[in-house]
């Protein structure tokens, strides 16, 4: 593998928001975690879509969540599948079930925790990783 020199401090992929997801990332920049929520039936869902999957309403707004949740699932990469993460091996990727709506699973990483100590059901809370100028990525850490 060759890597060319970068003008950026953070060289892993950064999110490219679109019209549907822009409110989520704008909130993340403010260090706030939000999810779409149906204004008719109250259902939260993720990822952002224009319509409620339960009642099919188009009246969707982004509302904050506490940032707390539990580990629903996790894996640990020991082999490179994405070249930008080669130097992080072994690294975890998790699915977090949010406290407000356990059916919503956010993919993320758990930090401040050994991979061997991650467990399904572990309580976590979000923190906002300001990885570079104008780029913030939500990750999770164990609740102490």
């Amino acid at each position, binding site marked *: 593998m060759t890597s060319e020199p970068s003008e950026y401090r953070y060289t892993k992929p950064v999110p490219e928001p*679109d019209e549907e997801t822009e409110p989520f990332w704008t909130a993340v920049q403010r260090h706030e975690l939000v999810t779409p929520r149906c204004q008719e039936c109250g259902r939260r869902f993720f990822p952002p879509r224009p319509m409620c999957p339960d009642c099919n309403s188009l009246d969707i707004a982004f509302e904050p969540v506490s940032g707390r949740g539990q580990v629903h*699932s996790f*894996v*640990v*990469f020991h082999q490179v*599948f994405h070249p930008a993460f080669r130097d*992080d091996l072994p*690294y975890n990727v998790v699915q977090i079930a949010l406290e407000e709506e356990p059916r919503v699973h956010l*993919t993320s990483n758990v930090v401040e925790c050994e991979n061997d100590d991650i467990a399904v059901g572990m309580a976590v809370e979000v923190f906002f990783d300001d990885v570079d100028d104008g780029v913030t*990525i939500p990750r999770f850490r164990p609740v102490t």
Partner: protein
Amino acid sequence: MAGERAAALRDQTAIVGVGLTDFSERSGKTVLELALEAGKNAIDDAGLTNTDIDGVVCYMYSDSAAPGQVASTLGIGEGHLSLHSNSGGDSPPQVTGWAAMAVATGMADTVLVYRALNGRSGMRIGGSGGPTVPAGRPTASGEGQFTSIYGMAGPIANYAMLARPHMAKYGLTNADLAPVAVMMREHAQLNPRAITYGKPMTIEDHQNSRMIVDPYRLFDCCFEVDGGVAFIVTTAERAKDLKHPPVYIRGVGYSSGALDPDGATYAKTTAPRVLAAADVELGDIDVACISDDYTWTFLGQLEDYGWAGGGEGSAWVSEGRGKIEGGDVACNPHGGQLSEAFVHDMNQISEAVFQLRGEAGDRQVAGAEVALATGTAGRSAIILRR
């Protein structure tokens, strides 16, 4: 009831030809050549010629030969039916079901179903990201903006993520997956076509294989190959007059979208569907070619179908209940995706056909009358009978 409407399909069609290429780590052929070879072999196996075929069915992930190209090169007639897909989630039982539906409803008489890929030497499923890291930094759009920014990449990780909650629920560890790999490898030693023929595996070998994406080691993952598999599906009537004893399609089941949270895999939803469609009970099944793309997805389906209780699949395997002889149901006599070859579960169906024809040689399940074949994570299933 959907099960009652399924009677319209039941036993109306049959698989009359199976064509395989060699399975290797480097075919030295293009995907078109593999598709043509598998297709021609299937047509020959049926005792038919290219002009007898009036339909083509296939699916791919941008990794195979286009059906139009395959059809015109094989010389399949003008005005043929073409049903195909280039997206995730499709699988052989489902697309074979499309062929059966087309034949049963008169949209076509004799359909070629194929899948061919250089899955080992060429484009790997889920392959992305070249050997270099771009200058600056990459961006992730679409679904990737929520997943690949965290390093989530490749198909193995998706199925590893699927396994974890179930394994945590029942206190299973990676060591509990080993008996599945060992059983498949044992069966493959009776199968000269298997890519692992002559290469037995012990529990210790499994445990010593390197971790790929925890909880999956190398030997928990299917064996990618270059190769192609094709079938010919026609009417039950016509099937009686062809080269081999017909293998009738009894029923097909499929489920997409979200999983039933009470189950392990998609089979929680698909199993009752395919059993109802085929009007068979679990105990009627003699051969179960359960998709073993991963050891855990095999175990999960074993439980979702009901052969093993929740979390008890590993013990079930260790007790020999999936063996070719003397078990509850013979599982993957050919060695499955783990040990025959990963042709994306097409060869789960081909093995079912060989078993029901009585052509399985040293690995023949005595008296096999009814067989099940499933696709990735139990998403789809087909029940065949002789």
